[in-house]
């Protein structure tokens, strides 16, 4: 009943929220969870505080979709924006929700 899936975590400037949501949807993500965060990194450049804090996206996807998502994020954002992402192996009960898109 437990299904092995992958948790994609991405920390990104608030400004890019909509763009990242679109990217995730394109890769078939069925949902995501967003948290407001604050952070420091090697660049630490942000548009302005009015754009809100950094956002931390968590997205549970199938093992196969995880790599392409992170690759796409890297390709789209890494050069010019403050973005980092990582993958964690997790297990989920009733995992069908995340692979077939069913409720």
């Amino acid at each position, binding site marked *: 009943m437990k299904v092995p899936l992958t948790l994609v975590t991405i920390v990104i*400037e608030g*400004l890019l929220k909509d763009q990242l949501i679109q990217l995730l949807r394109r890769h078939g993500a069925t949902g995501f969870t967003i948290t*407001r965060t*604050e952070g420091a990194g090697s660049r630490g*450049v*942000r*548009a*302005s*505080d*009015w*754009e*809100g*804090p950094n956002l931390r996206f968590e997205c549970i996807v199938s093992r196969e979709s995880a790599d392409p998502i992170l690759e796409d994020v890297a390709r789209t954002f890494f*050069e*010019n*924006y403050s973005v980092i992402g990582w993958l964690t192996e997790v297990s989920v009960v009733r995992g069908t929700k995340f692979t077939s898109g069913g409720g």
Partner: protein
Amino acid sequence: MDLLIQNLISPVVLAFVLGLVARWIKSDLEIPSAIYQGMSVYLLFAIGLKGGVSLSESTLAELAAPAALTIVLGVLTPVSAFFLLRGFGRLSRIDAAATAAHYGSVSAVTFIAALEAVRLAGMPSNGYLTALLAVLEVPGIIVGLLLARQSRAGGVKAALHEVITGKSIFLMIGGLVIGALCGAAKVDSVAPFFITPFKGVLCIFLLELGMVAASRMSDIRKAGWRMIVLGCALPLLHGAVATAAAVGVGMASGGAAVFGAMVGSASYIAAPAAVRIALPQASPGIYLTLSLGVTFPFNLCVGIPLFLKLSEILTTLKS
């Protein structure tokens, strides 16, 4: 000189200084980001509302010349900024264009500080100025982006969308329309929230802005002396020209000074967001440091009193 000190010793300016000090002595003071965003919503909407009310009391004839002047300066200032930043400032095309977009747009807080200084000095002002503020926000950013000549596929279009649906301008224009539709009598019912406490909220906002500016100022050294010179020269140049022109088209002496401060100011709310989307290669370390770390405090302390003086002199000469 007296005017200068008179201007500096005000709760709003000192709150900004307090924010700088907080960072310098490494205090753990923090304004939660939700509060900061809430205050921004409040301030932008309130500015718009107030502008809308005075718009509803202005005639079209009165407005025509100042509005035209605003658009002309909104197109010219990013161009002059661009060439000075390229030439004297030795910036790359992209960085010069990105920074020019900021100088073409406008800082609402500088505008309000100027309004307050004019009020304290007892000079006559013009009600429609907030409407001009909203008009001036947009063209400078567009011209700046065009000057980059290169941008991501669909970048300028995306930036235009970002500028117009972007929350800053959306709130200000939204407030403007509501204020204009409702008029003074109806806005009165919300005045105890949007009008009277406004300057107090601005204090806390500037406390936070001071803390942000302090981090920016620590980057100034990296930017080099040429940048610092431009961060002071650009507002002086744009502000003086605008003040003179405003006196020319017949604005009141106080109104012309506010207009000068407004045109001389550099955006650090609407412009950075748009530029970050359309010109991601440009370095925020340059444009934010210049606009928030140099030009904003410069205008707050030196620029505004100068434009007041200048406007006074020119108005006397004219009459």
